[in-house]
């Protein structure tokens, strides 16, 4: 088990494994997302209160779910990198941040688009949108700390400490935002109440969440490959990879 783990954590080995993994992640992602969109836009019935406006949840909910899930993944990877000093884990954490920030932005934008027909305004200080906004700040803080260091090793470890401090804080932030919003009795995105969720509304949502997750993993694998190659630029295997790709391009 451990030897397998250490072998995977070696950059050249990972670089090869990830390359073969990418199509196995991105093709299912495409299939699931197409299926989910068809289910969400065609099969699922209109909501009796919100009409067709609610259908944006098929993008909003998976994005919001991934924005949180990726932050936790990033903090886990950063923690593993910090404690066991595994460079690949730092590369994974570094690659997570821009993807996570993008999904957070997507969740915010779709949330605002949903807000317009719901509340008549694009923005309400409502707990879930507010939490997403704070999460976006956390991602920005992480990424700007990363870029502030000249030394990669220092940048990896410092940003790992920040990611861990952030992940401890995320539930605290979440609950204080809920508490804060509860005091105001403000409007909230009306949930699809449990009894009203019919099977034809639910399965496209779950399909989309699964599809988005596969998409994230595929993009992550691609990003980590690039990150690893850049980090190991001076090593022989990276030079071999670079030489072989440039020869291929020359042949074309």
């Amino acid at each position: 088990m451990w030897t397998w783990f250490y072998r995977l954590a070696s950059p050249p080995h990972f670089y090869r494994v990830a390359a073969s993994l990418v199509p196995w992640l991105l093709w299912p992602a495409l299939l699931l997302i197409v299926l989910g969109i068809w289910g969400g836009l065609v099969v699922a019935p209109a909501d009796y209160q919100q009409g067709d406006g609610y259908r944006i949840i098929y993008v909003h909910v998976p994005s919001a779910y991934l924005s949180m899930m990726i932050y936790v993944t990033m903090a886990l990877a950063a923690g593993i990198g910090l404690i066991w000093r595994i460079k690949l884990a730092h590369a994974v954490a570094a690659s997570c941040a821009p993807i996570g920030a993008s999904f957070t932005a997507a969740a915010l934008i779709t949330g605002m688009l949903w807000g317009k027909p719901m509340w008549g305004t694009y923005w309400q200080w409502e707990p879930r949108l507010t939490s997403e906004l704070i999460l976006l700040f956390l991602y920005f803080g992480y990424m700007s700390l990363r870029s502030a260091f000249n030394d990669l090793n220092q940048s990896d470890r410092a940003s790992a400490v920040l990611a861990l401090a952030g992940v401890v804080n995320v539930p605290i932030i979440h609950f204080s935002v809920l508490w804060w919003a509860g005091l105001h009795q403000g409007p909230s995105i009306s949930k699809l109440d449990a009894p009203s969720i019919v099977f034809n509304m639910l399965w496209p949502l779950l399909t989309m969440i699964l599809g988005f997750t596969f998409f994230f993993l595929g993009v992550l694998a691609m990003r980590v490959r690039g990150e690893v190659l850049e980090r190991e630029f001076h090593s022989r295997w990276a030079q071999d990879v670079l030489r072989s790709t440039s020869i291929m391009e020359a042949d074309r």
Partner: protein
Amino acid sequence: MNLGLGSLFLIVLQRDLMIAMRRWSDICNPVVFFVLVVALFPLALNPRAEFLRALAPGVLWIAALLAALLSLNQLFRADIEDGTMEQLLTLPYPLGLVILAKTLAHWLVTGLPVVAVAPMLAITYHLPADAISTLLLSLLIGTPTISLLGSIGAALTAGLRQSGVLLALMVGPLMLPVLMLGARATDIALSGDDPTGPLYLLGALLALALSLAPPAAAMAIRISAD
């Protein structure tokens, strides 16, 4: 040679306070900044009493947070630059305790004066007496939490040249729960209700920050001193 942990804490605390006393501007700047920010709102907005009263909890808390964020940048910077941190790192003592002593010294010279002048400023915002006592209490519990959370960020950026905005961007979101609870507690007292709930929650956050922030900041300092 084996120094007790209590005396280690006191030695570091005493020295940092002594250094701060030799530099009065470092003590005065955050308070003056705090007063300035608070004074900006009536000038830019509307000086009517009931309007200011509604604004007071949020404004005073935001100003206190900003004053803390500005001063935190200096928490470990001089120690990293002049080599003091290298010496502290090669001494056989738990670094977390040293960090805690330094953070406490920093709060005593920058945070406590802000807390002390806050009631006076609250009077200029026409805040009633029981709301002022809640404000004072919430700041007294909340600003040490802000300093402790900020010590992690200050430790991470201590070795970087341009870090003021970066520090605020990094640790600002982490401090939002303190801001929300503190301002809201004052607000609740202002509307005549019982603010003990959020004050207890603030206390819980302080306890959490006391136990988790120093080791995290110690880890960060080792990275910054590298």
